[in-house]
């Protein structure tokens, strides 16, 4: 919806053959229907992502079929699978190399929290420890429909982004970081184990 114009007036104008829009609406419409994901998969979730891109589920219906092999050309990072601690610095580096505006979908239990490997020593307990995540899809693995749902959620999120004003989109704020520190390989764990500026887990209250 464009701001500053009454929805009723807009509808009346449309009946008369006059189509009124705003730059923001047009801009977001263009962006949300042409999201190019980064082409990489980490584990079994990647199989579902491939199925989503193939003919049966066909992510092209939503404008997301152009999987790019380079982060410079991608808008969306689908973290599809288990992020091991050895792989995590590379994921963060790929995210840093993507051009703004960029979005992240954490696909599956592992990418969200470590999933069944949460108690292990070698799996990152959620990619949101290092980079901001826009949409989380639970599942092990999530079905292609779930990935399409997440994609549509992301589209509606893009559609609502403001181009100006106090709460404009993060990529338009010069102060907002678009790159995040890449964790180092430490002696016992990644250093740091989480980025406190990104990762704010809820405190658990228990008696």
């Amino acid at each position: 919806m464009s701001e500053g114009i009454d929805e009723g007036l807009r509808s009346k104008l449309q009946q008369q053959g006059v189509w009124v829009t705003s730059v923001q609406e047009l801009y977001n419409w263009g962006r949300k229907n042409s999201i190019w994901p980064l082409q990489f998969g980490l584990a079994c979730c990647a199989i579902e992502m491939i199925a989503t891109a193939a003919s049966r589920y066909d992510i092209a219906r939503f404008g997301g079929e152009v999987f790019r092999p380079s982060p410079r050309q991608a808008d969306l990072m689908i973290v599809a699978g288990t992020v091991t601690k050895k792989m995590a610095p590379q994921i963060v580096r790929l995210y840093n190399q993507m051009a703004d505006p960029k979005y992240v979908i954490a696909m599956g239990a592992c990418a969200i929290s470590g999933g069944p490997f949460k108690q292990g020593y070698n799996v990152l307990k959620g990619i949101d420890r290092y980079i901001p995540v826009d949409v989380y899809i639970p599942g092990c693995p999530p079905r292609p429909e779930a990935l399409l749902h997440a994609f549509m959620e992301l589209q509606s999120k893009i559609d609502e982004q403001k181009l100006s004003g106090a709460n404009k989109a993060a990529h338009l704020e010069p102060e907002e970081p678009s790159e995040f520190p890449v964790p180092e390989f430490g002696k016992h764990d990644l250093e740091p184990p989480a980025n406190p500026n990104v990762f704010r887990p809820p405190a658990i209250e228990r008696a």
Partner: protein
Amino acid sequence: MEGLEQIKARIKAAVPGAKIDIVPNPSPANQPSLVIDNEHARDVARFLCDDPALRLDYCSNVTGIDWLDRSVKKTVKVKKVVDGEEKEVVETTEEKLPGYLEAVYHLYSMAHKHGPVIIRMRTADRAENACLPSLTPVWRSAEFQEREIFDLYGVRFDGHPDLRRILMWDEFEDHPMRKDYREPNDYEYEPTPHDDVLEKAKGHYTSRPAEEELKPS
């Protein structure tokens, strides 16, 4: 295929000085194995691989075992003279056995379609002397799996062509499959904690505010 006793006797004949022990396996699997001393391990392995009757040319699996230090209690009935009378007294003696690391090789024969013959090697201890001779020169398929044992158990294989960590990063210092390994404590939420996990998760809980504090004043 001949039995382990027979194989043991033939190894001893072929490799003079080799110390071979048979480890029985009383479980339903019933797969006894041979413990080979480190000094003659390479020669024994070569014999097992090349012997025309055995031809164990395929090493299908190599894995590690961590045996912690343990103490064994033994109760012995001893006759003693107590207060002028001879009585039977039960004495318990505690024997401390040092821990060690072990590598287990499962060998098959592609030529004769038989197997497995299981061989083991043991390190002197779990720290600075955790060394074993590498059997990669005999079975090439052992290369990555010996690297894995090096990575996860910390056994150093002498004579290995490329001994580096294979799963964890090079800067990592621990050996995660050892029984005394403790993983970094980086939990933030545990949906169904239990046992050890519950103890660990408790450290991350904040106490629930008392009911009086929750009431609007």
